[in-house]
């Protein structure tokens, strides 16, 4: 009896170590970011950040790209501080609780409307903090996705037409650490010649050799890729390529207009929705069209298993719950000052996303397991003895 085509691949045991589909991590993170975009309540936002950090802690791999979360955390902290500092140059419009008074600086008349210093009210600071925290949370979500999903595995899941773009991103990612390494080498050499290694002249002297090295490596890599068959057997007529580009551009324009519409730029929100749909359709068509001729194959592409679906589902609860939450809870007022209200159903729905840890498999180790190191050193010790 011919069996019906199987929709899902056989579910894998969670005990097996593998990479979860990169797309699944990205979707999960985007859903969390969408939650963050919809609220200014610090308790919800801090919950989202904690969820992301917990999942990253337990499910990131040991590969270098997994460390990117740190950079995003720095950026997030910077955003909050910067947003609060900005308060100082914006005039206070509202608020009743005076925090402290800064000396006011008079600016020339053409800076009308901008004032430096003056009365700083707690309400404005709180308002700035809430806004800053929202942006910071979105940043942490993106950072989380980058730490959880391997960029090269992501490359395998993107449509063939975008292969070149994806490839340049991957190559750039491997180039960045190399540049840092080169810069260190050049600085070391300056030190060895007994020259200054700090200050602007020294920096300028580092710049040229590092750039030279990068160019040289780029050429080497290009020739290596060519000799391994990159760009082979992709024959596409000029007309077809042009058509694809037109479709692609049109599609992107449609999506942009659609987004603007959804955000309420146009008076009628239906126009937005319509252009959005047309845009998505056009881009999809363009991707399909361009991908047809690329005769590359994919080695073990990530596949969608049940864990992938479960991980994404965990992030849906919070989003749905937030739709039914009162606005005063989602966006607490900063004037008058008050402790933000909490809706426990919404809060726990947000925390459901942390279950992604239990539903996703552990990533395999990509660097030398430490036990291996011990083995080597023991052997040496025995030999020495």
């Amino acid at each position: 009896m011919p069996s019906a085509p199987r929709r899902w691949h056989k579910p894998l045991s969670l005990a097996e170590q593998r990479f979860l589909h990169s797309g699944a991590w990205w979707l999960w993170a985007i859903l969390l970011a969408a939650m963050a975009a919809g609220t200014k309540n610090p308790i919800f936002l801090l919950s989202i950040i904690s969820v992301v950090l917990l999942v990253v802690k337990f499910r990131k791999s040991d590969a270098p790209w997994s460390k990117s979360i740190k950079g995003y955390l720095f950026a997030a902290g910077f955003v909050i501080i910067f947003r609060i500092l900005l308060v100082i140059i914006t005039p206070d419009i509202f608020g009743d609780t005076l925090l402290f008074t800064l000396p006011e600086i008079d600016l020339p008349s053409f800076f009308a409307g901008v004032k430096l210093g003056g009365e700083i009210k707690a309400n404005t600071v709180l308002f700035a903090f809430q806004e800053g925290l929202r942006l910071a949370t979105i940043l942490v979500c993106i950072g989380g996705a980058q730490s959880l999903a391997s960029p090269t595995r992501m490359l395998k899941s993107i449509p063939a037409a975008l292969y070149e773009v994806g490839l340049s991103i991957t190559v750039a990612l491997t180039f960045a650490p190399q540049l840092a390494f080169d810069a260190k080498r050049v600085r070391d050499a300056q030190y060895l010649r007994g020259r200054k290694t700090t200050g602007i002249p020294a920096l300028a002297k580092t710049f040229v050799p590092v750039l030279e090295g990068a160019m040289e490596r780029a050429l080497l890599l290009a020739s290596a890729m060519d000799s391994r068959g990159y760009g082979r057997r992709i024959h596409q007529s000029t007309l077809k390529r042009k058509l694809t580009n037109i479709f692609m551009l049109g599609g992107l324009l449609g999506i942009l207009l659609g987004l603007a519409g959804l955000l309420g730029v146009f008076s009628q929100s239906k126009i937005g929705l319509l252009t959005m749909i047309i845009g998505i359709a056009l881009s999809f068509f363009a991707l399909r069209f361009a991908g047809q001729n690329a005769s590359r194959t994919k080695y073990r592409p990530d596949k969608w298993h049940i864990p992938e679906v479960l991980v994404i589902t965990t992030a849906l609860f919070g989003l749905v719950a937030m739709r039914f939450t009162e606005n005063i809870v989602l966006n607490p007022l900063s004037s008058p000052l008050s402790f933000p209200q909490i809706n426990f159903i919404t809060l726990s729905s947000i925390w459901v996303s942390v279950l992604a840890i239990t539903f996703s498999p552990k990533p395999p180790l990509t660097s030398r397991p430490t036990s291996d190191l011990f083995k080597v050193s023991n052997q040496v010790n025995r030999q020495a003895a």
Partner: protein
Amino acid sequence: MIKFENVTFKYSDTNFAILENVNLTIPAGELVLVVGKTGSGKSTLLGLLNGLVPNFTGGDLTGDVSVDGRSIREFPPRDFADLVGVVRQDPRASFVTDLVEDELAYGMEQLGIAPSTMRRRVEEVLDLLGLAELRNRSLATLSGGQRQRVAIASVLTTNPKVLVLDEPTSALDPTAAEEVLAAIQRLVHDLGLTVVLAEHRLERVVQYADRVIVVDREAEVYADRPAQVFASSLLAPPVVELGRTAGWSPLPLTVRDARKFADELRTRLEKSKPRIRVNVPTKTLVSVENLNFNYGNLRALRHIDLDISDGEIVALMGRNGSGKSTLLSLLVGLLEPTSGKILVNGKNPLTLKGKSLIESVGLVPQEPTDLLIADSVINECISSDSDSDAVPGTTFSIFEQLTTDVSENAHPRDLSEGEKLSLALAVVLAAKPPLILLDEPTRGLDYAAKRQLVSNLQKLGKKNHTIILATHDVELAAEVATRVILLADGEIVTDGPVSEVLSSSPMFSPQVSKVMSPANWLTVSDVAFALEDLR
């Protein structure tokens, strides 16, 4: 399999042809060794095999090169991907992906090979090169030997008929080199692959070669059996030179062949002793006490205790990653010890800066060009004189002593590897530091350049400079070192006179010592000197 027909090639920025009228035929299934001085056109010859030269380098090509009937005049390099696998000197520069398994599949993905076939071939090649347990590893975490094997594996998956390797072992320690060469040999024997391999360290590869191509700018390029080539060639591994010195015939190419003659030579030299080359120390120059250094969680150096006197030439040896370069960086103050004490000439290197640093210690890094910043040899020398407040012309006169005729207007980048090293060494010597450190100085050097380096180092040693070299090159250590320190996993395993350490270690003993054991001879020059004495 490979055919060169009347090939003449000239790079567009030079006015001479680097290869002239080359005619060669390489049959299928052979392991061919390409030898020649640096800059003689070896890499050009290898690059022609899949058309990277001239497609990527530019230049004028006349004549034709064809592989399995496919001509490089008609097809671009990418169309050779299923026929010629190319592995570069530094595989890191050609990795495209970040995991071992993906790297192996990359070439096949480009060729559009069916997923099921890809899966099978990846498994086969993983087994063939013993990489199965490394399949999930990130490429950045591999050791040198593993990296080289992954690079070979990644070009093998497309089932090429020819494998081209440019100095596959030059950056590797002896053990890792052995590992890579054993893998290559298996490919030739089991798969019938044709392998074309360029290598300076002949002592490592000669025994595997079926045929040798000699590339020389002054003479015709030709291919012959190894025995014929090395009977007359200036470039020869130590075992061949030993055979020539002792007058053996037929000339042995491997240690095994040579051992058959060794009895006779040992009896001839029964009463002779190798020259002793230790200076009388007058003071301790470097003293290291309980030195520890960690990179993050990794303990790179542990409990190092060391005293080095003036006039000593110390070879630091050990696997890749055993802590050699780290120790050199610590001695010159580039790194700060996690704990422990270092004194160089009585001072902590961390307190030395600028002129006081270059007057106490000089380091020639792995890539000597790192040190060179000017756009011509003469400008480099002038800037070095001013750095060290030396009399103008000092650096250039040192450079002239270290090397043979070089135009002073040449760009440092266009010098040969040996000349670059000499220039960097001259820059370091201009400030007259008592301690000179060299990191892997023989990488990319041919035998002539190496001989020059050896004599330069010996002269410096006689002038009571202290020299510390981190090196994988056993033959270099045997030639110049007075003392050898073996490091393993950040600890000193052995520390002793060169003759004791090198003759007792299976991995780190030079060819002459392998041939002559149990008698304690390390180098051809020692043997030649003793034979001269007998006459």
